[in-house]
């Protein structure tokens, strides 16, 4: 396979995952804003931060309130993480790697793009927001299903998966980075109602409410949430889960080689050093510092994969 193709596959799936994550973050943000009976800009700043969308936001809008924040995340032309830009970048990459993906996958990506272009052509009203976001998540899920159901399990598939899980790990880490203070052990054992809303918001933004309740019943607090999102290997958006998947796919890519690749070494180091401990140690180390370190290592890993597989040169 061409290095360029590996690059295209990697970014196609990253952008699709990003569009879906952004949709989920908007849903959560809207939910929290509605629950708290105010919709000031300050509510949305952390959401924009989690989505990696804060840069450029204030320049783009005269009155940067809630409505502007939602529009920026949905359709911001200069926002590289907006749903609209992510989906068109995903399609651009799909066009580039048209020969490496199946017709079904291409058509699903193209249909997603066509749907999003129509849906996001104009500002989406508050009333239409839930159905628009649902349609976007449904379509990106369709692409994932097509990839799962029609692609050969070869190195092309591996690059798609690596792109997906790197983006997802990055997203989970950023949500934790922005909201880490909500999860720090508080003086009182029982959180206030404001804390409860915040905790629920974090779980919602990674589609983990159901799973968490199934696991911890009504008891789980901030420490359990942090553990769940960082270490739980059954939770498909946890850092440990994503990193384990990346590690698997890197191993498949390296099959037949006598030595592990540089990126394999890096992911093993990441897993051994940062993801094989308990949550207490993370709090001792500092939750914020830990997350910063994870983000840094994930970026380094992405860079190493590009080098190992000759994405550019």
């Amino acid at each position: 396979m061409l290095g360029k193709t590996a690059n295209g596959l990697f970014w196609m799936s990253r952008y699709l995952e990003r569009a879906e994550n952004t949709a989920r973050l908007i849903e959560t943000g809207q939910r929290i804003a509605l629950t708290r009976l105010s919709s000031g800009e300050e509510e949305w700043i952390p959401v924009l931060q989690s989505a990696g969308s804060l840069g450029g936001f204030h320049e783009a809008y005269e009155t940067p309130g809630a409505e502007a924040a939602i529009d920026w995340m949905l359709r911001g032309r200069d926002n590289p993480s907006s749903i609209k830009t992510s989906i068109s970048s995903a399609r651009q990459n799909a066009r580039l790697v048209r020969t490496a993906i199946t017709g079904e996958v291409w058509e699903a990506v193209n249909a997603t793009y066509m749907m999003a272009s129509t849906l996001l052509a104009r500002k989406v009203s508050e009333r239409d927001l839930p159905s628009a976001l649902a349609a976007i998540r449904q379509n990106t899920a369709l692409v994932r299903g097509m990839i799962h159901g029609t692609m050969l399990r070869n190195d092309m598939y591996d690059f798609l998966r690596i792109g997906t899980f790197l983006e997802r790990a990055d997203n989970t880490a950023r949500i934790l980075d922005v909201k880490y203070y909500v999860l720090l052990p508080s003086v009182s054992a029982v959180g206030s109602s404001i804390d409860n809303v915040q905790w629920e918001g974090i779980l919602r933004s990674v589609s983990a409410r159901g799973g968490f309740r199934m696991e911890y019943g009504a008891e789980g607090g901030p420490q359990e949430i942090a553990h769940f999102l960082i270490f739980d290997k059954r939770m498909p958006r946890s850092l440990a889960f994503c990193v384990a998947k990346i590690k698997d796919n890197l191993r498949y890519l390296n099959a037949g080689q006598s030595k592990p690749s540089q990126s394999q070494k890096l992911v093993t180091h990441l897993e051994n050093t940062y993801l094989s401990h308990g949550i207490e140690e993370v709090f001792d180390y500092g939750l914020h510092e830990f997350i910063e370190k994870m983000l840094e290592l994930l970026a380094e890993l992405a860079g190493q994969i590009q080098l190992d597989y000759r994405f550019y040169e």
Partner: protein
Amino acid sequence: MEKPESFDEMWGVSGALREPYRQFNTWFESEDPARLRKKQRDAEELFRLTGITFNVYGKAEAEERLIPFDIIPRIISGSEWFRLSRGIEQRVRAINAFLYDIYHKQEIVRAGRIPEEMISRNEAFLPHMIGMTPPGGVYTHIVGIDLVRTGPGEFFVLEDNARTPSGVSYMLENRETMLQMFPELFSQNRVQPVSNYPTDLRRSLAACAPPACESEPVVAVLTPGIYNSAYFEHAFLADKMGVELVEGHDLRVVDGRVAMRTTRGYKPIDVLYRRVDDEFLDPLNFNPESGLGVPGIMDAYRAGCLTIANAPGTGIADDKAIYSYMPEIVEFYTGERPILQNVQTWRCSEPEALAYVLDNLEELVVKEVHGSGGYGMLIGPTATKTDLAAFRRKLKARPGNYIAQPTLALSTVPIFSRAGLSPRHVDLRPFVLCSPGKVEITPGGLTRVALKKGSLVVNSSQGGGTKDTWVLED
């Protein structure tokens, strides 16, 4: 049904249904027009979803457009096709022999059949090719011959596309669409299949592998990139052949061979189906500004380490001034009378011809010698006074840059319009594959149709559409 002004392939000149359309017409008359209109819209949706689009040049953002598709097929009988395909084969063999000759001994010039300056002063003549024989002796691996029709048995060749003919993806996708929308038509009519084209193309290219190739030939398609107007087709063909689609920056010359950068290092290519023009192919040998090509590719080619399809320098055979000599070329190399006729052509470089063209400009079609895509041409009968005056000036300034042809009464085929069936002018581009000793022609081709009433311009860049083209088994 509007009354046709020229020969209509469904209704003739008299309005009597022609035989190849008999079965189709029975079906059409029993169909509900509302259902067909819906199908026409479905077809468009299908094209959009599949992404069968072309990029329009000169727009701020590379805009993707659909080429309009008309659901009424263009139907050719088996016997009509038999004669056409013999004529095409003869012509393509002659073109290959001509290319070999002009890059070697130039016997056709010595024999006085073509003036020497037509070759030596031709912009498309590539000195790098002198004395070199491409692998297998094949110059034009893929050819598209543009044909027009004026009557039941009268076919003319309008143009020989010997460089990089495009449009074959439309031939294939138009058929796929028809099969999906009207399966019943294909059980009622015995239509010869076109779907083998990608497999045939791959086999044909592999058969032209260079001497340096020792195992299963590695084939790749070279595209100028995602913003090229025909990018969809490049990706489509690479996908259907199961080969890599590469760009210049994926390639480099490694140990004398052209190789592509894969995730596991550089891998040599044997046959490169390039959709990049000669000029941009090699910045070391041609245009130094080109970012689309591969430095040193011509040296690898000359050393027998690579096959380039079509061979560099084939452009001289689809030059419109050379076109006017095609009857002589066919006779010279095959020793036979040409089966397909040329359209009468005035070479404006000749003073007498120029005088005639200037006197009769209102009745003629004037084309640039190296033009394509329907750009830079004049259609006398529909041109304004200003256009005519402008072309008179251009002709006087650079006569050698133009040829002129009579305005032909092109045949029509009905399209499905609001009013029902309406005749529109068409042309036909069958696709031909050449490998050593072999010429294969896919039964059918691309039918382009001028959607505007009375218009003779069928180019997609000028608002033309396409149709599925059927060749029946007789």
